[in-house]
């Protein structure tokens, strides 16, 4: 569990990036910070691994203040995936993945073996392990970034717009895969995005942020959709534009047709099935 206790951050130049932010991020769940550019998402995320130190307030991991932990050790114990993957260009892919275990003293051969298995886990061909990062596509680099973050088997995974730089199709793949990984591995994931659809897709808890790290609303996607806290949230999730409003319409076909679901503009997007969804959580 990660707790933010009235955390504020004022940067040296006077920018108040986050003001009095408090939130509990439950263990083994995915919390997504979503909000427009500059609202303080990255700042919040980086306070967890002490890349940014709060000006006031505390960040606790399982009840322990991170300020009391050794920075280097803390960072090695937390997986971090950056927007531009942040891979080391002079290391082969497999060595990038093995970085943290090697830093913490695992024998190189053993760490590499584990790294190859992680390439399987994130859906990369093992042959790519011998390449340098520059020889991979953006989507592949992102997967390597995820594999590297998983390599030390951390409890916490910080992801800062990890899929922001890849094209929409690849992003959709990566999102689906992250969901699968999360189901298998049960990490405490903190994910930052400014894409509300991505937030709804991945989150157990969505945190919609306004400028200065002000929480506009926090809750499950269902809660937020069912009852947007205010106009800001309603407009942010697109509820005001009818974007999320779906209607049922009887299909044509002389009474044999199924009930179809249409969006706010009347475009069909699916059919209504009998019974509840089995993936419901």
């Amino acid at each position, binding site marked *: 569990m990660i707790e933010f206790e009235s955390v504020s951050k004022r940067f040296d130049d006077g920018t108040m990036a986050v003001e009095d932010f408090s939130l509990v991020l439950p263990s083994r769940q995915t919390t997504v910070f979503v909000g427009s550019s500059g609202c303080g998402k990255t700042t919040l995320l*980086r306070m967890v*691994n002490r*890349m940014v130190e709060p000006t006031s307030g505390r960040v606790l991991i399982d009840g322990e203040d991170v300020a009391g932990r050794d920075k*280097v*050790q803390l*960072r*090695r*114990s937390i997986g*971090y995936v*950056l927007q*531009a993957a*942040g*891979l*080391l*260009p*002079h*290391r082969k892919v*497999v060595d990038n993945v093995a*970085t*943290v275990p090697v*830093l*913490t003293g695992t024998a190189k*051969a053993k760490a*590499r*073996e584990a*790294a*190859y298995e992680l*390439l*399987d886990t994130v*859906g*990369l*061909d*093992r*042959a*790519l*392990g*011998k*390449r*340098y990062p*520059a*020889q*991979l*596509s*953006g*989507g*592949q680099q992102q*997967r390597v970034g995820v594999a*590297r*973050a998983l390599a030390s088997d951390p409890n916490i995974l910080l992801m800062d717009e990890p899929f922001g730089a890849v*094209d929409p*199709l*690849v992003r959709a*793949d*990566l999102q*689906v*895969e992250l969901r*699968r990984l999360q189901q298998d591995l049960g990490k405490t994931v903190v994910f930052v995005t400014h894409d509300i659809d991505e937030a709804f897709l991945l989150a157990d808890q969505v945190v919609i942020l306004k400028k200065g790290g002000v929480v506009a609303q926090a809750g499950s996607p269902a809660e937020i959709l069912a009852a947007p806290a205010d106009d800001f949230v309603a407009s942010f999730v697109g509820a005001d534009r009818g974007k999320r409003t779906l209607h049922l319409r009887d299909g044509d076909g002389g009474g044999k047709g199924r009930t179809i679901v249409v969006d706010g503009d009347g475009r069909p997007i699916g059919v209504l099935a009998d019974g509840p969804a089995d993936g419901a959580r």
Partner: protein
Amino acid sequence: MLDWTRANLDLVRELTINHVQLAIVPILASFVLSIPLGWLANRNRVLRAVVITGGSLLYTIPSLPLFVILPILIGTRVLDSLNLVVALTIYGVAVMARSAADALASVDRTTVEASTAIGYSPFGRFVRVELPLAGPVLLAGIRVVAVSTIALVSVGVIIGSQNLGYLFSNGKQRGILEEVVVGILMSLLVALVFDVVIVLLGRVLMPWNRPGRAGRKRAGLVADPATGGPAVPAPPKLDKADAGVGGGDA
């Protein structure tokens, strides 16, 4: 033709070996010494100014007075070849410190930040991330230092150093053109060999930096040439059979 050369092969060989030995130490020493200076220069603006300006000033010291002063400063004998080595190291550092400062500043900030974020200690990050990534610019700097050091070694004949420079001065004194030419050619050859060795070392030590390599590999291996998209099949999870390709390297 080549009478002088044929008669003096041993002399030429001996002088060449000596020349190489005199050049290697200052080149290595200026490389090693410039790294901490380059690190210092990137701490803050004042230190940067000190290192860069200091380097330029050192380089403007004329070599002859330096040869004269050095024995007094470091307590060597006037004709000691150590004087030459120290003087050449000073000139080498003067050039290389700036290169090292630039090289370390050229390293991508995001990569450095990323390595901090995943848990490199400051020292580990410097040695294993910043230094190797500064490699290409360091290499360019040390090539310049190598060539200029090899040229400067010749000046050492003034203080009695036995190197290829002896062939110029002796040849000129005695009016043997061939001796002068051989001296020049051998210095050029030594400089060329040093340069090639440094470039090859760079290739071996920085395999990620090999030009053209990325392009070739990519063309051969990427599964999705049309869009330049990922080589990953559409259903993201590969089964074991696919995933095993190219394994067994660990």
